[in-house]
């Protein structure tokens, strides 16, 4: 007979959940150079990331956070805050949910959506830093990423289709024609579908 089963999470994730790093203490964010927040309580996830920046070098010197969410949400913001310290603003801006999940030693499929808010909040904080410092030309909009190579459909197209009413993979295909050729993007499209449905409609 097997004894107490493993957690659904990796040891690294468990460690970051048990001992989260860089939690913002107190309520004040005045001492920070950039503040970003994403998500909402009704959806079950909300993350705030605050950064201190060495303006001359363009390097993040400190990163702290607050997270309302489950164990993987807490752990992913914790590890993200460790990952970006010492990185340049450009490097940090390009950290993806995949990078976070990899650093955590992997995430269960149904928990991927819990880790996509941290990097978004970080990008919002970086953009906030640029705005505050009059560097509006540097403020970057979220860059579109091609998901379906065959039909040239981006994640922005997917998000738009969902906002316009697509709720299932089939409806997404009807609107965007994604995955109608080689079909290799099905998995990624479906996870984006779930993510955007969650973000926009809380379902």
């Amino acid at each position, binding site marked *: 007979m097997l004894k107490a089963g493993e957690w659904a999470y990796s040891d690294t994730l468990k460690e970051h959940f048990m001992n989260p790093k860089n939690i913002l203490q107190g*309520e004040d964010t005045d001492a920070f150079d950039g503040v970003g927040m994403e998500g909402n309580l009704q959806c079950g996830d*909300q993350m705030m990331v605050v950064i201190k920046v060495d303006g001359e070098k363009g390097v993040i010197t400190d990163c702290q956070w607050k997270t309302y969410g*489950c164990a993987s949400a807490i752990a992913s913001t914790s590890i993200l805050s460790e990952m970006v310290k010492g990185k340049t603003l450009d490097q940090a801006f390009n950290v993806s949910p995949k990078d976070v999940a990899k650093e955590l030693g992997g995430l269960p499929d149904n928990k991927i959506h*819990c880790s996509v808010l941290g990097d978004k909040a970080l990008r919002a904080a970086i953009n906030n830093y640029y705005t505050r410092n009059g560097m509006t030309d540097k403020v970057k909009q979220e860059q579109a990423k091609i998901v379906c190579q065959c039909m040239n459909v981006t994640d922005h197209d997917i998000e738009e289709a969902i906002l316009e009413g697509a709720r299932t993979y089939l409806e997404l295909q009807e609107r965007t024609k994604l995955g109608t050729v080689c079909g290799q993007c099905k998995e990624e499209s479906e996870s984006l579908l779930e993510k955007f449905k969650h973000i926009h409609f809380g379902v």
Partner: protein
Amino acid sequence: MAEMKVYFDNNATTPLHPEVKTEMIAAMEMFGNPSSMHAYGREARANVEDSRRKVAEFIGANEQEIVFVGSGSEANNTVLSLFICSTSQCIPGTRMRGTIITTKIEHPCVLETSECLAHRGVRVKYLDVDRYGKIDLDQLAGMLGDDVGLVSIMMANNEIGTIQDIEAISALVHQSGALMHTDAVQAVGKLPVDVRKLGVDFLTISGHKIYGPKGVGALFIRQGTPYCPFIRGGHQEKGRRAGTENTLGILGLGKAVEMRAQEMQGEHARLLDLKRALSRGIEERIDDISFNGHPTDSLAGTLNVSFAGVEGEAVLLYLDLEGIAVSTGSACASGSLDPSHVLLATGVNAEHAHGSIRFSLGRESTMEQVEYVLDVLPRTIQRIRNMSTAYIKGGVHA
């Protein structure tokens, strides 16, 4: 306080009663098929029928009215699925009426079966519940009519513990000529259940919620009630449920109800005391909380609490690290993106549903365990709130 092991998740499942365990271990050698006529078969048959007597007696039924099944879910699927046979060949002369009424707070095995039946042409109507989880008899009366064949309403809710007045509901349902089913999985063994007094036509029981084994349940079918088997192809259970009987499980279920009959009465007041101590302690020691479910018409051992600004899975796992086992209605713990359908039906907002924790106490729960939980819980909630966006300046709960 030193770490303790606290199992406050008895509505999910229960440990075997020690006497059930002893009886089952002693019966491990019994392998005969109850359908066989030889000594091996007769031994198994005798034990299956002995259990049937015990279960029938426990709920005030006749032995012939008890069918053993594989789980509470199977029993519920069986009852609802009668309605696929709308012009029944199996029950000559019976024409099932095509509409089912149920509630928004049923177990998924009822809700998802209902959805499936809706795809197959059965009409399903869902009763609302009030903020305490109670249905409205007037709404039910308004829905009943010549087209309604079955009403299925759970006796006690697994998440919030709210108890419905099944007796009054049955009377109303029968006036309209429909059949009445109650999923009594959480009620049997905790509340007095008498099928005649309740007036139900079908009633569902599960073994593992009452300190019996998993993989066994029982369905009460009032004599003379139209019925169609869910699992076909055998004469077992008088043709009402095919498949060789789970003899050991059935024996365990029989012993479990026997022990419930002895213990449940004295247990009720004790559990109520424990729950009161737990709820009072939570109220005194933690801010921004709200209790879910009915203040009085509720299972003695079930307490459902929402903690603002925290997410339930995080609470569950931090408590698990300290030896405390509970459940949550949060979406993250369920694997879906939706929080508890029961809490949402009572009008609890999504945030409070995500932050809900269910404590379900049982026969092994003690005041010492309640005190340990009251020691660990406030600092756990405080710890999570300290990292929550809900409590920052300008946050929802700041």
